[in-house]
């Protein structure tokens, strides 16, 4: 089934690397995927967004108007893209930075203080992995935990063991939040 994910935030938060990891994970699990980055001339601090489309068969158009799942990593991106989430979709909000109240009632909301969790775990850089965990935990139907663990090993396996462990812990924490949100 064709599913679209938008990851949005500020340049430097790991928006693009999250999107690429999700696309790579889906492909490694035998699916088709497209990844489209959108950003301005800024490297850091500017608005950053990427769209990932995952499907069982070849993807005809990679330019979905509304997304099935939305990850917003900061307040600005929540305000900008919140409305582009389909009814019945999953919103994963990094509530360490998204401060507006989330009022939509036609969506599943996973509120994750990803920055705070990442800092507690030891490195703010893994906040995006916490959010990917929430995506898996909320059963968004894009990637599985097993496939994502394989991706983390492929990406960080050659680095120090603690880097891999940190990211695995971040993923696990995110999954908890995702599961709790859909159990409500």
């Amino acid at each position, binding site marked *: 089934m064709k599913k679209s994910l938008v990851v949005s935030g500020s340049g430097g938060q790991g928006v693009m690397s999250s999107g690429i990891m999700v696309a790579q994970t889906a492909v490694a699990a035998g699916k088709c995927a497209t990844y489209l980055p959108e950003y301005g001339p800024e490297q850091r601090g500017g608005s950053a967004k990427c769209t990932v489309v995952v499907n069982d068969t070849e993807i005809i158009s*990679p330019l979905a108007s509304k997304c099935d799942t939305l990850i917003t990593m900061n307040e600005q991106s929540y305000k900008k893209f919140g409305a582009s989430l389909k009814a019945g979709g999953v919103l994963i909000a990094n509530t360490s930075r998204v401060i507006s109240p989330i009022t939509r009632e036609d969506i599943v909301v996973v509120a994750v203080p990803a920055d705070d969790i990442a800092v507690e775990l030891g490195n703010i850089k893994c906040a995006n992995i916490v959010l990917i965990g929430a995506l898996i935990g909320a059963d968004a139907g894009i990637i599985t935990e097993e496939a994502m663990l394989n991706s983390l090993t492929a990406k960080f396996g050659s680095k120090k063991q603690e880097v891999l462990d940190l990211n695995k812990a971040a993923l696990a924490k995110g999954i908890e939040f995702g599961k709790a949100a859909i159990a409500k």
Partner: protein
Amino acid sequence: MAKVLVKGNEAIAEAAVRAGCRFFAGYPITPQNEIPEYLSWRLPEVGGVFVQGESEVASVNMVYGAAASGCRAMTSSSGPGISLKAEGISYLSGTQLPAVIVNISRGGPGLGSIQPAQQDYLQATKALGHGGFRVMVFAPSTLQEAVDLTYSAWDYAERDRNPVLILMDGCLGAIMEQVEFPEMKEPMREGTKNWSLNRVEGVHRSDRLLTPYFPEAMLEMQNKSRALMVKRWEENDVKVEEFMLDDAEFVVVAYGISARVAKEAILKLREEGYKIGMIRPITLFPFPKESFRKLDYTKVKGFIDIELAIPAQMRDDIALEVKDRAPIYEYCRSGGFLFDDDGVYTAVKKILDGGAK
């Protein structure tokens, strides 16, 4: 070989290496920067040469020199940079040298915008430089197609001793999707082609063109032979996808990323019972005239030109073939705005409902 997830620009760069390209010179410009970035490490790996020139003009002239030695050479840029390379591309065609030029296009005119667009259609198909020369223009719609077209581009360039242009929008340049790369071709040794300046044996000196400036009679003779070449392209080298045309009352015409969004809309509209299909030019030049000529104009109620260009540019080529036999509608965006599924679906449906009245 297994499929790999790659970025459009890098897919073109790797396909070029596999096609035997061993020289690249370019100057940075968004949204094509991953092509030079990739080739800056990849070409030295295979014994090739990468140069970041001091300007677009210098870069295209380095390609001119490399092509004259018989080496498979390439340069890439985006709209504003292609304009600067225009002189060199005209010289390549004038001295009958093969090379591949890549335009990953962005919003225009002028410096325009760094966001994707299809606003270089007219430049690409009508006059890529001064002097009235033509080049084959390849317009991929998927990254696999980008790989396959790039891989074959030098075969056409060398057959014709003429540059080939790959025109792809910045959206496909930036996107990542799965491709399968072809086998590595054995790079051609320099000096083995009849235009090579360092050729040693078996080639008549007159095969080479050692000056870009010709006596009148010779220049006209050359231009006549080039006119015949263009005619041969139109007869033999057109590439086109004809999608759901058999019973179509409305025909979308779109290329590149626009064609993918249009196809999604067509499939949805077909489910709703609309008789709609698409002509997708893969070679923008030679334009797929035959696809328009063989349509049944007693059935076709209209054409819908969908491009990321305002004013529409491909419309002129469509109109030349349709010849007032059916109305031509447009749905266009520009300036760096992209199409999206709902937008194209809604716009096309509105045209169909209005046109069916």
